[in-house]
């Protein structure tokens, strides 16, 4: 955040050379990891939000009609929905881990300089999370017992 005014606040007219067009990477949000993590964060955030709307509605059935709740939750155990749940957990995992990266960048001095390694650390943790979750979940959905 910019609390103090920079050198641009002088009254005189300044002469600025045009920006060099060669490199677009090198800033936090333009190009490469910084930009793609933002795109992923936005897409996963929207997906999770719409799921949350539906999830509150389906869970509300638990207050109204036990059989209706069981019927709706039953559809959550089908293969197609099971794959959807896998995708949802993947989305939440990525949003959460990259969210922690954003928070680290914002609050830990110097973390901005290592934002790219931090992104790849989040990805590694995400892969580990899914390696732990997915086989078990897919067994629950597709397996016999």
């Amino acid at each position, binding site marked *: 955040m910019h609390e103090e005014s920079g050198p641009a606040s002088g009254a005189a007219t300044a002469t600025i050379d045009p920006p060099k067009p060669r490199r677009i990477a090198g800033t936090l949000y333009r190009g490469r990891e910084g930009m793609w993590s933002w795109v992923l964060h936005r897409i996963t955030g929207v997906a999770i939000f719409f799921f949350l709307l539906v999830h509150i509605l389906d869970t509300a059935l638990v207050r109204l009609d036990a059989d209706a709740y069981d019927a709706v939750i039953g559809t959550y155990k089908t293969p197609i929905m099971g794959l959807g749940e896998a995708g949802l957990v993947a989305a939440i995992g990525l949003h959460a881990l990259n969210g922690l990266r954003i928070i680290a960048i914002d609050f830990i001095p110097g973390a901005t300089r290592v934002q790219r390694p931090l992104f790849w650390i989040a990805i590694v943790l995400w892969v580990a999370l899914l390696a732990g979750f997915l086989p078990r979940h897919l067994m*629950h*959905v597709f397996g016999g017992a």
Partner: protein
Amino acid sequence: MSDTATTTVEPPRYSRAPRKARGLEKRAWLYMRASGILLVVLIFGHLLINMFLGTGVRAIDFAFVAGKLANPFWIVWDSLILWLALIHGANGMRTIVNDYARGALRAVLLGALLVATVVLLVLGSLVLWTFDPCIGDTSSGVLAELCGAQ
């Protein structure tokens, strides 16, 4: 971007948001981060119990939920997720709507977002705090005894 001429810019060369708006926006900004940290614990706990341990999603039915909501700990846990996540998500969606929509469309989308959020906060809270296990199958087990008196 192939322009090679030098550009002359009059001061001031930036515009700054008014103080008041910054205060509110800064609070929203802080809320996104504070709620995010709490949600990591709350949501991963939720997924661990409901989607991982035991037989995961297969185990979920009315009786499973009734068992959890018999414990005030889980009522509070789920209420925290409901409020923190829905407000976090809605505020994030507000940012996105402001990024992509203008004029009347923006107003309609923001209005719908606000209405949906308030309605679901009230609905979800009512479900969690007025839950009644006796609307389920009470023919046998603990519920037969517990609900028989009614």
